[in-house]
């Protein structure tokens, strides 16, 4: 598939000198996060339109490299593209990919052709004109399938109505439970509401010292907020509304934080430093945590590597609902793949991303190979996926659960000020968990602090 050269939105006419002035002011505070507002330094290159291209491919996860290499081979074998791609991968931490990209763009050299932008780091590109300056708009590339793409997965990677990256996943939040343990202590696994689960979980904790949930309280501030955000969205709340305004000081926010604080204080929700790290592994291994809410990718990156010996014991189900409203699922995580604009390989990069991420067959393969859910709604009816049984989850047909809740998934929006929110909100969440502040007070103070911080950073 050859893409017509899309007309990118016109960035402000800014020179690199102005860019550096901006960078100098913002660099220390944001570690390059705001340094590139208005990067006009990228020289426009004559795009390559066919043939073999070497693409520099930056990602935080090696699995993406293998996935896209296979996608490139598949597309080439099908004759579906005028390009043949050879990937030259660079691995860096998720936030480091963004830091490196911005720094290289400032220097006017060495930016990647394709970059995997983890959703926690992506907000740094939403500041100012950064995204428009650096990334190739993908709206034309997805025009044919736009109606089938899950809006909930394109919204976070869009700005001002322009799509800049295609998500690798539709990471629904589900409830994981260790079935034999629930049976042993007599906990029903089909409780319909969080309130019922809380009552049963509190009793189970008193009798058997087990937990039916976890919240993150470590030094990764984004993870601390993530614990809260998952249930907040499920309850119908949001961190930021569609205009990017902070919206945590709400009835939904208070209800969710009250629920979580109660769980932590009564002990049936465990506190861990890192849901993928040592404390969680110890909690899982010891049987202290026998259930938790987490994204679909948690099986592969959290459970399988940490507790391989518990293979066959875990199951998933939709989240219990809150009695006062909300849905049965939520979202957390994701990684958007973007092409860098105005480079000679820009067209080839866009073509690789669409070849790898938009065709139904590749979306099916992505789930089977990586465990990432399709971002096209129609693929949720794939017979192959619905028939797939998961060995680690005791042969469960997990995709049936995903298809059952995908249409309930809430939309969420990012804001360039998300890192500020992570900083101010995480501390108040911990104080609310400890009982030092009421949930209402914690959210109100976090809101005040956030507005104070963002006012000062923008002045």
């Amino acid at each position: 598939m050859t893409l017509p050269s899309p007309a990118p939105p016109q960035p402000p006419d800014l020179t690199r000198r102005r860019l550096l002035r901006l960078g100098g002011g913002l660099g220390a505070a944001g570690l390059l996060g705001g340094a590139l507002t208005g990067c006009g330094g990228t020289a426009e290159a004559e795009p390559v339109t066919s043939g073999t291209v070497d693409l520099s491919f930056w990602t935080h996860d090696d699995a993406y490299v293998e996935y896209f290499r296979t996608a490139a081979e598949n597309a080439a074998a099908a004759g579906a593209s005028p390009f043949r791609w050879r990937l030259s991968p660079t691995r860096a931490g998720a936030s480091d990919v963004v830091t490196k990209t911005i720094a290289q763009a400032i220097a006017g050299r060495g930016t990647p052709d394709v970059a995997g932008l983890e959703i926690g780091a992506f907000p740094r590109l939403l500041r100012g004109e950064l995204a428009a300056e650096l990334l190739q708009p993908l709206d034309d590339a997805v025009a044919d399938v736009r109606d089938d793409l899950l809006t909930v997965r394109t919204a976070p990677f869009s700005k001002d109505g322009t799509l800049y990256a295609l998500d690798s996943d539709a990471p629904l939040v589900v409830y994981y439970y260790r079935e034999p343990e629930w049976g042993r202590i007599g906990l029903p696994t089909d409780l319909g509401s969080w309130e019922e689960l809380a009552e049963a979980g509190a009793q189970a904790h008193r009798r058997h010292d087990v937990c039916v949930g976890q919240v993150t309280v470590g030094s990764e501030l984004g993870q601390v907020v993530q614990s809260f955000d998952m249930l907040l969205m499920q309850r119908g709340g949001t961190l930021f509304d569609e205009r990017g305004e902070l919206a945590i000081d709400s009835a939904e926010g208070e209800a969710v934080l009250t629920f979580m604080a109660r769980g932590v204080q009564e002990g049936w929700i465990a506190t861990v430093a890192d849901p993928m790290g040592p404390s969680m592994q110890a909690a899982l291994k010891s049987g202290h945590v026998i259930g938790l809410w987490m994204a679909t990718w948690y099986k592969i990156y959290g459970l399988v590597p940490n507790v391989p010996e518990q293979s066959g014991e875990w199951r998933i189900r939709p989240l219990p609902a809150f009695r006062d409203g909300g849905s049965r699922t939520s979202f957390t995580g994701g990684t958007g793949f973007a092409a860098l604009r105005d480079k000679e390989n820009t067209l080839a990069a866009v073509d690789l991303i669409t070849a790898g991420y938009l065709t139904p067959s590749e979306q099916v393969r992505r789930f089977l190979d990586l465990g990432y859910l399709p971002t096209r709604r129609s693929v949720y009816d794939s017979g192959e996926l619905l028939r797939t049984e998961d060995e680690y989850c005791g042969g469960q047909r997990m995709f049936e659960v995903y298809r059952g809740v995908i249409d309930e998934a809430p939309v969420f929006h990012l804001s360039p000020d998300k890192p500020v929110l992570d900083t101010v909100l995480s501390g108040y969440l911990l104080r609310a968990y400890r009982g030092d502040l009421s949930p209402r007070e914690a959210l109100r103070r976090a809101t005040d602090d956030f507005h104070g911080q963002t006012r000062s950073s923008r002045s």
Partner: protein
Amino acid sequence: MSAATPAPPAAAPAARPAPDRKGNRPRRRGSRSGRVALYLTLSVLLLVFVAPMVWAVSGSFKPRGDIFEYPPNLIPSPATLENFGNLLSGQPFWRWFAISVTTALLATAVAVFVCALAGFAFAKYRFAGKRVLFSVMFSSLSVPFAVILVPLFVLVVKSGLSNPWFALIVPWVAPAFGIFMMQQYIIQSIPDEILEAARIDGASEFGIFLRVVLPLLRPPLGALAVWQFLQSYNSFLWPLVLISDTDSYTLPLGLNILFRAENRSFDLVLPGAVLASVPTILVFLLLRKQLLEGLSAGAVKG
């Protein structure tokens, strides 16, 4: 025994140590219980500081599934070298290691020489703009590296010096802290008379620096070398921005991508961290004497 037998000495107040001829009393040594408390406290602190290292070494010999076993077991059972094998076969670890060690040694050697030379100039010469230059150099101590990262990177790229082998050592070759440290030591410890004597003997100014000053600077240079090696060896942000080829990463970058991987590869990170700590331990052992002398220089009245 008569009734006039004096009371046992234990009941008497503790005798005070006799003053010397100048009337100074010797310092009292701590009581036995005080020393026991001190040693206990130090032992606990030692355990606190050493425990993570012991745990890391222990964990690197455990199968992945046992690393975070609860309750923790410091003796690996079964012990395995599989983690080391996987690290060395699956990652370009030795290349990362070689790049880190080589660039750190280069940066250290250059920095030690430059600091000594600059410190000598600031301490012993008069020249136009000396005060301003020293003030600028000194004030740069308060500027975080993140602030100069972008300008430095652009400077390196625009001047065509972005070859990683060269550029990796650029930020570390003239540390303000090192220059200040050398200047202070030279002012305090090297009298002008020694330099004058060398000049009378016909030595050139650079010869004086090489043959007279540099040998006298061994203690602070040892301390500076250890500090400088650690700075360069552990640096993260600069190599991160500079290097895009994963095979040419430095150790902190390499270990970081293993740690930041989606599935937290602790079975690779722990043996990597253990191996990565070897050069720093060796540098400390080799320069221990100079380090201690350098750190205590000026602390005892001569």
